[in-house]
């Protein structure tokens, strides 16, 4: 029974957290729209439900908080009291408290919270609201369910029972939808994903072998049949891969739903008026993206509200609407998910950015002059950067933006900033759709083969000794008038410090930094499954992982972001 209890409690926590997440955006909408019976009812039911289960499980503090919040919601729902900012604030505080209490249970940290002040606040808020409403319930008797005494008039009973109940009857479609979802443990899905990855590797092997056989035994009937079967397997495996990947995908609404509340909570103290527009919430992304994209986006949004948007007065002076608009959208474009956060504020002041970067020693005078606008924009993403003269409570400590870059890189994605003076700025985050499988360019450097992720590769060139020039101690290639730093792969990896000859240069673009990697041979493109290497510390190595190629050998997959940091670090001394 104790195990059963553990499971029940775990389920309670998950479900309650989800429930609270679902009602969060409703509060903000309510504040803007005013009364909406359906929303009020949904919030009421959610708090009520959590209270019920909490009661069973003996979580008395939760019951107390939920009970008092529920009472407020009940009266709001029945129109007995009116919504107000104070009421909203205190109910939101109780939602936060419930979340906190749930977290303590989840973490089993034994921490107790003093809920007495909040409970008392809730009670007071309800009393005040009731007093403000004047005569209670009389006018709204027809709508509400009145407190009833046992010896009741039959006419009143009939009125009460014929009242339409909480939610309108929804069509069959909704019912069918409810029947078609399944709660599955993430670990089970991950296991299937892992196995699928293995199947992909085996398929690659088979394709490789069969192709060789085809060359040798072109007319053999059995080999032809084998070829057909493997081709079919190839197609099915791709479909299976896609299918499994989709199992882990969820609408990005899960992340977006926290934003209305975030914007509300930030804009108030800063005295900014913000209009938030969300679109593309139904776009599906991998679970890991949902888990990791939230933080970077929060930073970007905070930055937009704090630095991007002007105060209502400033905006009026510029002839803009008093309320600034922040638009957040998500879209699937081919193999990527593109997320944009735009504001119509003052735009990035490139001169200030460059000045600050100079002052902080992040760039040299020469670079500041030569640098393109796009490159200057991206200085914001460097660690330690910040243009706020005084670090405001929210941002300006120079920590926010580089967190964005780091987290997005972890997802193998990129982030870009574009901006126009007084028109606004846009942050564009691009993340590949599949995280475990990538297209690579196979190369040989020395005796070792490596897989280079294809996405950042812009082009490949044949290079002779004469093409290589030297600039301030590093090799460089001039390509169509632009200068790119050049590094031998063996050099960056530290396997061979000699400046040996090499034949090909792979031109790479990581977050707007261009550089070239010199290799001995280009071995073609291959789609590989990224497998982690036991014992490898992923944060300090230059590898994304390893894979087994079609011919059965183990090949390391390079982490170009990490390599670029080393390479470019060598340049900006």
């Amino acid at each position, binding site marked *: 029974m104790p195990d059963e209890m553990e499971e*029940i409690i775990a389920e309670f926590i998950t479900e309650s957290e989800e429930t609270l997440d679902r009602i969060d955006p409703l509060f903000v909408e309510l504040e803007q729209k005013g009364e909406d019976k359906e929303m009020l009812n949904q919030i009421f039911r959610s708090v009520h439900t959590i209270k019920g289960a909490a009661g069973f499980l003996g979580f008395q503090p939760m019951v107390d908080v939920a009970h008092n919040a529920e009472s407020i919601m009940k009266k709001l729902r029945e129109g007995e009291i009116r919504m107000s900012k104070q009421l909203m604030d205190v109910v939101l505080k109780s939602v936060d408290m419930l979340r906190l209490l749930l977290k303590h249970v989840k973490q089993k940290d034994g921490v107790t919270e003093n809920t007495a002040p909040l409970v008392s606040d809730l009670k007071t808020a309800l009393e005040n609201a009731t007093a403000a409403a004047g005569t209670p319930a009389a006018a709204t008797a027809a709508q509400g369910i009145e407190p009833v005494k046992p010896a009741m008039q039959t006419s009143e009973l009939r009125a009460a029972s014929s009242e339409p109940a909480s939610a309108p009857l929804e069509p069959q479609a909704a019912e069918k939808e409810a029947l078609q979802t399944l709660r599955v443990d993430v670990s089970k899905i991950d296991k299937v994903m892992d196995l699928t990855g293995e199947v992909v590797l085996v398929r690659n092997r088979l394709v490789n072998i069969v192709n060789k056989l085809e060359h040798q035994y072109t007319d053999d009937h059995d080999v032809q049949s084998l070829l057909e079967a493997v081709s079919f397997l190839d197609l099915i495996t791709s479909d299976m891969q896609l299918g499994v990947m989709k199992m882990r995908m969820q609408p990005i609404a899960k992340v977006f739903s926290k934003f209305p509340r975030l914007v509300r909570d930030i804009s108030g103290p800063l005295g900014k008026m913000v209009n938030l527009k969300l679109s593309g919430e139904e776009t599906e992304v991998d679970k890991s993206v949902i888990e990791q994209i939230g933080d970077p986006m929060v930073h970007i949004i905070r930055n937009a509200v704090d630095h991007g948007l002007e105060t209502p007065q400033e905006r009026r002076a510029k002839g803009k609407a008093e309320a600034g608009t922040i638009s957040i959208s998500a879209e699937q474009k081919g193999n990527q998910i593109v997320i944009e956060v735009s504001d119509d504020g003052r735009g990035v002041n490139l001169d200030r950015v460059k000045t600050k970067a100079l002052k902080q020693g992040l760039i040299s005078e020469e670079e500041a002059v030569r640098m393109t606008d796009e490159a200057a924009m991206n200085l914001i993403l460097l660690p330690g950067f910040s243009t706020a003269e005084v670090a405001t409570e929210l941002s300006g400590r120079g920590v926010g933006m580089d967190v964005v870059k780091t987290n997005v890189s972890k997802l193998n994605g990129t982030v870009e900033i574009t901006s126009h003076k007084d028109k606004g700025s846009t942050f564009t985050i691009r993340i590949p759709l599949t995280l475990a499988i990538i297209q690579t360019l196979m190369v040989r450097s020395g005796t070792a083969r490596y897989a280079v992720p294809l996405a950042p590769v812009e082009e490949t060139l044949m290079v002779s000794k004469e093409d290589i020039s030297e600039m301030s101690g590093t090799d460089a290639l001039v390509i169509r008038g632009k200068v790119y730093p050049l590094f031998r792969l063996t050099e960056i990896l530290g396997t061979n410090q000699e400046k040996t000859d090499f034949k090909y240069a792979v031109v790479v673009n990581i977050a707007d930094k261009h550089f070239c990697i010199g290799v001995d041979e280009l071995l073609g493109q291959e789609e590989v499954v990224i497998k982690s290497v036991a014992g490898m510390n992923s944060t300090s190595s230059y590898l994304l992982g390893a894979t087994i190629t079609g011919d059965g050998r183990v090949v390391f997959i390079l982490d170009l972001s990490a390599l670029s940091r080393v390479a470019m670090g060598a340049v900006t001394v």
Partner: protein
Amino acid sequence: MPDLKMKILVVDDFSTMRRIVKNVLKQLGFENIEEAEDGAQALSKLKLGGFGFMVSDWNMPNMDGLQLLKAVRADAALKDLPILMVTAEAEKTMVVTAIQAGVNNYVVKPFTAEVFKEKMDKIFERLEKK
């Protein structure tokens, strides 16, 4: 005490609650338990037949406890189904409405297995007396 092999339907939109009720039923020896997330789903399942008892929450989306109750009582095949309503302390006012609509008994949450058993036994005693 009713037949332990009887098929029972537990209805609540919060899966933790369904689990808790299911747990209580199992403690009492019942093993044949099915679940539904709301009144609409419950009704579909009931219509497939074979259920001897239903435990339902009151507040649910799509079709709530009261509507479900009325729909069951209005259905020729289901009208005699024993139904136990699960309610919160504050909802006691609804109890009269529920009884009028034909619910057999109600239990206030949180409840223990013993209390649940009493309520259940009461329902089946009364049914036998009829």
